[in-house]
């Protein structure tokens, strides 16, 4: 018998060839995720997440096969045990389950950090006791703001042992410098098609890339050393830049905190990048940036995935649709010991789901 946990899915291979009979359906798990047998070919039995739990055992007296119960019960589960966060563009929440599948009471004493886990938080009031079969469901929040690299463990300590939740990922670097309008801000919109032409000028055309890809050229004239450092750090990774031709000023007053719907003063109904090519938007207040996912744009109303976290006044912020991309080349022209200029060419980074 072997068992493998990958994320929240349990896969089990059963190597014996038992003479077995299906028993009655039972319900032992307190969680919504219950397991069931599928595929009853002799020699192998697969298990996947469905909705009911079926137990099985030998009908031969005095002989007991190891059952599913033995796999699941008698231990404490932390689900999942690792999360690959990928590129973090905005605040994200993840559900973490801590399930006492033993027959005794246990006490979860603490959840501590090990490694680089800036602004990766789990709200919990500990220590707390779990009865047999009881489950805690926590929310892991990974904030968009924080150190660039995330690599570490959340250690769940209970009784005299512990289990770890491993987190790995990278925060998206957001370029919040203003474009220098002394130069042209250009966006290259491109498709890819294949065209073959015969001598008689008949053509066959095929679509290679059905979605537009962009390349942005932005000019920066800055005296800001932190921006220069961020650019160097971002040269070999992914960066998000504002589409400077589509600034969004708000037709609102007061605090934006908690609001998930914004009313624009700008002509956002004609902002093509915002409406069709981008799903994230930067809310910039000075040198601080908050990123939100854009769900829809209807007229001058922009709907966000969830409320704005920062307590910023609407009059103080400017918003831009963001494009994630990689820097094609990085060159600085230093006008003085402090003032520098850079023309950045950034190719859109397209990655799968």
């Amino acid at each position, binding site marked *: 018998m072997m068992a493998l946990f990958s994320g929240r899915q349990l896969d089990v291979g059963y190597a014996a060839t038992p003479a077995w009979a299906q028993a009655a359906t039972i319900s032992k798990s307190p969680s919504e995720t219950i397991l069931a047998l599928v595929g009853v070919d002799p020699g192998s039995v697969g298990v996947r997440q469905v909705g009911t739990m079926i137990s099985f055992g030998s009908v031969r007296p005095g002989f007991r096969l190891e059952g599913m119960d033995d796999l699941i019960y008698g231990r404490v589960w932390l689900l999942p045990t690792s999360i690959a966060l990928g590129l973090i563009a905005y605040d994200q929440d993840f559900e973490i389950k801590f399930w006492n599948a033993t027959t005794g009471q246990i006490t979860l004493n603490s959840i501590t950090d090990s490694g680089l886990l800036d602004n990766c938080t789990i709200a919990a009031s500990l220590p707390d006791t779990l009865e047999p079969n009881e489950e805690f469901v926590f929310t892991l929040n990974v904030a968009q703001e924080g150190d660039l690299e995330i690599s570490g463990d959340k250690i769940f300590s209970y009784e005299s042992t512990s289990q770890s939740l491993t987190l790995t990922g990278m925060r998206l670097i957001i370029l919040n410098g203003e474009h220098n309008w002394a130069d042209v801000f250009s*966006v290259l*919109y*491109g498709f890819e*098609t294949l065209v073959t032409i015969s001598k008689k*000028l008949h053509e066959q055309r095929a679509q290679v890339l059905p979605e*537009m890809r962009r390349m942005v050229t932005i000019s920066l004239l800055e005296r800001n050393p932190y921006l220069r450092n961020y650019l160097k750090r971002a040269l070999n990774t992914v960066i998000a830049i504002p589409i400077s*031709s589509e600034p969004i000023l708000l037709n609102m007053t007061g605090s934006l905190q908690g609001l998930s719907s914004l009313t624009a003063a700008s002509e956002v109904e*004609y902002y*093509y990048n915002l409406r069709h090519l981008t799903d994230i938007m930067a809310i910039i207040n000075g040198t601080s940036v908050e990123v939100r996912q854009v769900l829809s744009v209807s007229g001058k109303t922009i709907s966000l995935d969830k409320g704005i976290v920062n307590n910023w006044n609407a009059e103080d912020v400017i918003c831009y649709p963001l494009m994630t991309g990689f820097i094609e080349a990085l060159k600085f022209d230093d006008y003085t010991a402090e003032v520098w200029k850079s023309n950045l060419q950034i190719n859109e980074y397209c990655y799968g789901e």
Partner: protein
Amino acid sequence: MANSFGGLGSITDMWLREPNWVKNLNEKGVVSRTLLQFFGTSQILYTENPEVPVEVKMMFMNRTKAQEYEFLSFFSTQQGRLKKYWLPEWKNRFKLTRTANSGESFIYVQNRKHAVAFQAYQRIYLLLHTGEWVTRQIASITEIDATEEKINLVTTLDRTISAASVSQSGLFLLVRMAVEKIYVEHETINVSIFSIESRELIREYP
């Protein structure tokens, strides 16, 4: 009256914005011939096609975000070089010499030897001073005398058109994008310029 787009078949995509004449409009003919020549010998020229498709390059300016949105939406529907659309050539090629009457299927124009270059797939457009477009397929062109040619149309005109009411008249080209990547250069947030290169599809006229 409204536009009268006749003779265009089922292809409805068209780009009708006037180019920005600050930059020259470029047109070139597409070569389709084979030259046979061995080292030190005479030459033999094989003409592959009597038709000459054109490639045109036009620069346009967006003055508002709405115009920019209009262009990007259009470009998106074309999917690079994949699809096709109608494009006026923006040349004053035909000059009416007589009033064209409603119900007639011909117009008289100044003789500029249009008959020499006539191909059966060609479409004509008349852009009126009212901003309305009239398009028709050309059936044939005959030379009347040294000063006048008669253009026979496949379908009749739906209005009477005097020479003075025509702002411009030229060929209505069926084209695809010749390039699949287009720069939009923003001089300000609202004002931007871009160029479209189009290639005529002489085998795909409906």
